[in-house]
């Protein structure tokens, strides 16, 4: 080695340098592939070899106060066929297409001609067509039938679906989702989508080419699926059903267009039942007219009429301007300022107390009491009772009601009309809230429909605010309750809404409904609102029925009030009242 070269060092250095340079090129390339662009290449390779699977994050359930599932998620199947494969099969076994279509049609309940027609049309457009949709949202029973048929050109793919086990029970509140893509359409499904919606996840896995068995250790979770939260309501499903049944039966009986009943816990402001008839069955929303698919109790404001007099009476007493036995002469017709006010039926001048004004439901009497309180104070009381703004529930498209510009009402007629419940609008839920305030000794509780959203990890969010607000003094509220008890005992419907054993405070109302164009519809909305037991109010029930053609007076809603209230008292095991209601003179 020593004598082979005159310049051994130089050669060694050159050779070494070349070697190093050569190796360096590989090293650089290696680093680039293995380190710098590793993720990119890995992803590309995964994509080529692996199969991506969607893991559905189930939409959360909607449950009632006792955990009864009102809306739940289920797995449904999308059924598709491959027209090209179906046609190819004809070569080996003529007639198999027609037989397969007939069997498939029988399994999922569609005519065979529809399937053969779709296949023929798809083949005409593209002879290599491999995908034609046959049915969406096929249930498991049909899925099992399809699998048992074993038709090679029929494919099924799981898709999440929604089911409402109790049908129309609380369908007005829950709303529904679009059947084919699960998009929330109405009600709490829509309003509480943030709570309910799950997040779909993704996994990938390598699989055997021959039989599609996953290769162990090749599964990767690209994105973790997250199930939606469980939405808990304050509603009781059994009570809701019974209330809907009572209301629907009465609506059929009196030929009414629609009706609504609100049942509220007087001490907490929790809605126990909100019935709207006609009611949508969320499993089949198209079975009822579009305007009947929501909850009018939240979305359709109306002029409350005489049920509103209880609020004015409480305002007057709270302001110290009058008491239950304060006296007034109530004529049939009275002119106050520019206003011309009359009662619903002609009568001679009546010498009434404030109690008597409520019992007789005298507009002229109530106007004379109402004007004792300043407009500003009366308006403020209305706002404090929760009128003029949507309730705390936040129902989709919930109405705020219209206080008609108060306290600066446009004219005297409106100003006086607002004292007996006309010239302003409220929702049924707002009226129930007014009576809740009176029942709860003048303390208004925020209206609650949703108790909270329980997430998969056990945390509960969306628990509604429950801050009480004193609207009128306890004395004013209790005196109003005592007067409403006299209405219940002496009013013209006394024998129709009697609930034996319990003391009840209630008020009727007959009101007109705005037609949306500045005028009134000629049909009436007849209502009864009240609470029981009056000695310790626990439940508020408010009933409104619209356009009862066979009985256009509060008598249409009185039996509903009686039946619903007695059902509520029975259900919650309310102890019957002991002492009789206090006597209050209605006239002088």
């Amino acid at each position, binding site marked *: 080695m020593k004598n082979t070269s005159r310049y051994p060092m130089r050669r060694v250095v050159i050779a070494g340098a070349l070697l190093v340079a050569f190796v360096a090129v590989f090293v650089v390339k290696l680093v680039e592939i293995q380190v710098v662009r590793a993720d990119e290449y890995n992803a590309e390779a995964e994509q080529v070899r692996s199969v991506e699977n969607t893991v559905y994050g189930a939409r959360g359930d909607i449950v009632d106060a006792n955990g009864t599932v009102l809306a739940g998620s289920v797995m449904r199947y999308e059924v598709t066929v491959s027209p090209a494969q179906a046609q190819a099969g004809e070569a080996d076994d003529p007639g198999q297409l027609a037989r397969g279509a007939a069997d498939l049609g029988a399994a999922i309940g569609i005519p065979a001609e529809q399937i053969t027609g779709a296949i023929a049309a798809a083949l005409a457009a593209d002879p290599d067509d491999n995908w034609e949709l046959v049915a969406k949202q096929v249930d498991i029973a049909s899925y099992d039938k399809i699998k048992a048929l074993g038709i090679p050109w029929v494919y099924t793919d799981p898709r999440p679906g929604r089911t409402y086990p*109790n049908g129309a*029970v609380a369908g007005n509140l829950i709303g529904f989702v679009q059947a084919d893509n699960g998009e929330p359409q109405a009600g709490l499904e829509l309003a509480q989508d943030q709570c309910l919606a799950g997040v779909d996840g993704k996994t990938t896995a390598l699989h055997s080419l021959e039989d599609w068995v996953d290769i162990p250790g090749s599964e990767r979770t690209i994105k973790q699926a997250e199930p939606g939260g469980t939405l808990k309501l304050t509603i009781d499903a059994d009570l809701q*059903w019974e209330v809907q049944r009572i209301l629907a039966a009465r609506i059929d009986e009196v030929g009414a267009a629609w009706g609504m009943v609100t049942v509220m816990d007087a001490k907490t402001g929790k809605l126990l039942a909100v019935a709207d008839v006609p009611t949508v*069955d969320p*499993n089949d929303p198209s079975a009822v007219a579009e305007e009947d698919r929501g909850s009018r109790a939240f979305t359709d404001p109306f002029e409350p009429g005489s049920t509103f007099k209880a609020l004015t009476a409480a305002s007057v007493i709270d302001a110290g301007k009058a008491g239950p036995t304060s006296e007034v002469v109530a004529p049939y017709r009275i002119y106050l300022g520019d206003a011309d006010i009359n009662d619903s039926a002609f009568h001679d001048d009546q010498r009434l107390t404030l109690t008597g004004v409520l019992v007789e439901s005298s507009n002229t009497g109530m106007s004379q009491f109402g004007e004792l309180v300043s407009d500003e104070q009366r308006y403020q009381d209305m706002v404090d009772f929760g009128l003029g703004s949507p309730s705390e529930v936040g129902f989709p498209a919930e109405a705020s009601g219209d206080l008609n510009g108060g306290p600066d009402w446009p004219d005297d007629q409106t100003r006086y009309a607002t004292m007996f419940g006309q010239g302003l609008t409220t929702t049924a839920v707002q009226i129930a809230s007014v009576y809740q305030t009176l029942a709860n000794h003048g303390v208004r509780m925020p209206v609650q429909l949703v108790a909270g959203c329980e997430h998969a990890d056990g945390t509960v969010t969306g628990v509604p605010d429950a801050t009480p607000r004193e609207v009128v003094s306890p004395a004013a509220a209790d005196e109003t309750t005592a007067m409403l008890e006299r209405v219940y005992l002496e009013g013209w419907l006394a024998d129709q809404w009697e609930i*034996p*054993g319990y003391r009840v405070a209630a008020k009727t109302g007959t009101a007109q409904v705005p037609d949306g164009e500045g005028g009134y519809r000629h049909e009436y909305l007849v209502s009864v609102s009240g609470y029981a037991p009056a000695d310790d109010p626990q439940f508020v029930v408010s009933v409104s029925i619209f356009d009862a053609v066979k009985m256009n007076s509060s008598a249409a809603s009185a039996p509903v009030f009686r039946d619903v209230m007695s*059902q509520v008292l*029975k259900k919650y095991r309310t*102890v019957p009242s002991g002492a009789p209601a206090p006597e209050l003179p209605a006239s002088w």
Partner: protein
Amino acid sequence: MSAVPAQSLPKPLRGAPEPTPARRLRLVPARAAGRVKPRLSYAIIALGAILAVAAAQLVLSVAMTQGAYELDSLRMEQAKVDRDAQLVREQLDALQSPQNLARNAEELGMVPNTNPVYLRLSDGAVLGVPQAASGGVEGSVPLVPNSLIADVPLVNEPAAGENAAEGSAEAPAGQAPVAPPAGALPTPATH
């Protein structure tokens, strides 16, 4: 191993001639040459180990593949069981819906009583006014619709709907004698 002495070469190069490293290199094979038999046993051990590892890997691989198929079939089974569970749960939900209960209660001639009466245990007082339930059997099903119970048979009509398909035509005849005698408990026929 040989790379390490090779790299140490240049340092002695500066001060000392080459023979010194050559001697050292010879020393190593001289030691190794003297112990031929131990090297063979090592080779056997090493080869054996390699074979054992290869065999173990083969066994593990086969087991894993077998496991993959087992896992796959178990997953299929789980999916099937999940489907069955959901099917049964959906049926149960339909059965326990208030509409179905009310329908069956009405079918049996039951009517709701709207006048609750309470017995207070502390003093035996009866609270409320007892009244017989009034009103006939009401058809409440159409009032609160539920499209899910359309195909659900009534409990006292076991022959209707799907049950008829499962059982043979003999089932209703066979069931008739099973009904308990009205007004009396069945007595055992032992002596």
